[in-house]
C-alpha cells in the first residue's frame, strides 16, 4: 500500500509541475483518470529513430504532441493549453494515433479547415475523446448532424460547449428558446438550462404587462430575484407536459419555415 501511495504522490507532484497546477488539482486528475499513476514520472533519456537524444516519458511525449497539434503558444496560450489538459486528463491516456484518427474523422465528415478543427476541439475536447464515427445518436458527428438542422456550423464552432447538450433534449430546448425570441441567447449558453425551467419562465414572462424585460432573461441566473418568483413554483404553474409540447410545436410551426416534431425519444426525455 505504501508503494501505491508513493506512486500517487509522485504522479501528483509530476503533474502539478508539468501543468503548473496545485497538487490538489493534480489529485483531481488522478481521481478522474487513475491510470495516470501507471505512467513513469521519470524523465529518462532515449534515442529516437534518427539517433537524437529525446525524453522517454509517455506523458511528456503526449504533451509535446498536443503542443504541436494545437499550435501552442502561437494559437493557444500555454495557460489555456495546461488548463485543457488538466480538465481532460483522458487526453493523456489517449494514443497519438487514436487522437489523430478521430480528429481526421471529424475534419473530413464536417469539412472543416485545420484551423476550424483546432478551434472546435480546444473549445470542447470531449468531442474528440468520444466515438467519432457516424454511428450512435450521441456521438460527435451524429450530434452535429442533428444540431445542423437549426444551427449553422459557425455557431457550433463558436460555441463548442453546445455539444454537451444531451442529444434528446436539444430540440425541445431550442424550440422553447426560439418561440420565446431568445435563440441567440440559447446558442450563447442558454442550452445549459433545464427545459422545464426555461419553458415555465417563458410562459410567466408572457403574462407580464408593463414590465420591461429582454427575452434572453429566461436564461438569467438572476431571474428569480429580478421577478420575485421561484422556479419551482413556476414549473408547477406552467408544467412542460404533453399539451405544452403540442403548443410549443404548433407555435414553432407557425413562426418558422420548417416545422419540427419531436421524435418519441425526445418526447420521452422530457415527459
Amino acid at each position: 500500500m505504501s508503494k501505491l501511495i508513493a506512486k500517487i504522490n509522485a504522479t501528483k507532484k509530476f503533474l502539478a509541475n508539468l501543468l503548473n497546477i496545485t497538487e490538489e488539482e493534480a489529485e483531481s486528475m488522478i481521481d478522474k483518470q487513475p491510470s495516470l499513476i501507471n505512467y513513469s514520472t521519470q524523465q529518462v533519456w532515449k534515442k529516437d529513430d534518427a539517433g537524437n537524444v529525446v525524453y522517454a516519458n509517455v506523458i511528456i511525449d503526449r504533451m509535446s504532441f498536443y503542443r504541436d497539434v494545437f499550435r501552442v503558444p502561437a494559437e493557444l496560450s500555454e495557460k489555456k493549453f495546461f488548463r485543457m489538459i488538466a480538465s481532460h486528463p483522458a487526453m493523456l491516456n489517449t494514443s497519438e494515433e487514436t487522437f489523430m484518427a478521430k480528429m481526421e474523422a471529424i475534419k473530413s465528415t464536417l469539412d472543416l479547415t485545420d484551423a476550424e478543427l483546432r478551434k472546435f476541439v480546444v473549445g470542447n475536447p470531449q468531442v474528440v475523446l468520444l466515438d467519432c464515427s457516424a454511428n450512435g445518436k450521441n456521438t460527435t458527428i451524429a450530434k452535429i448532424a442533428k444540431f445542423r438542422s437549426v444551427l449553422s456550423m459557425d455557431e457550433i464552432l463558436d460555441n463548442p460547449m453546445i455539444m454537451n447538450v444531451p442529444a434528446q433534449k436539444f430540440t425541445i430546448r431550442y424550440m422553447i428558446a426560439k418561440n420565446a425570441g431568445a435563440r441567440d441567447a440559447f446558442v450563447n449558453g442558454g442550452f445549459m438550462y433545464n427545459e422545464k425551467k426555461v419553458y415555465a419562465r417563458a410562459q410567466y414572462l408572457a403574462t407580464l404587462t408593463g414590465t420591461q424585460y429582454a427575452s434572453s432573461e429566461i436564461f438569467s441566473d438572476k431571474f428569480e430575484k429580478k421577478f420575485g418568483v421561484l422556479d419551482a413554483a413556476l414549473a408547477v404553474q406552467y408544467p412542460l407536459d404533453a399539451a405544452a409540447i403540442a403548443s410549443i410545436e404548433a407555435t414553432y410551426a407557425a413562426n418558422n419555415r420548417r416545422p419540427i416534431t419531436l421524435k418519441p425519444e425526445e418526447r420521452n426525455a422530457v415527459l
Partner: protein
Amino acid sequence: MDKNLEAYLKSLDFDDEDIENFCILVPSLEYVEYQQALDCIEAVVKAGYPKDDIDSLIFSNPGFLVCDPKYIANKLAALGDDVEAKLKADPTLI
C-alpha cells in the same frame, strides 16, 4: 457502476449510451460510490448552482462526480459570487 448511481443518472434522463460515454471520459465513474457522487452534487448545489440544471453540468463535466467533495467545495468557494453563471460559462472550473 454503482447501481444507485446508474439509477440516479437515468432519473436525469441519461440513457445507457450517455452513461457509457461518461465512463469513457472518466473511467473511475465505474467505481465511485453513489454517496460520494451525491456529495459532490450537493457541494455544487450548496454553492449556488441550481439543482434543476445539474444534468447539463454532468454532461459537460462528468469528472466532478468522482472528486473529493471538499475539493469541489473549495474550488467553488474560490469562485466567489455568481457560481451558477461561472459554471455554466465553463463547466470545467471544477
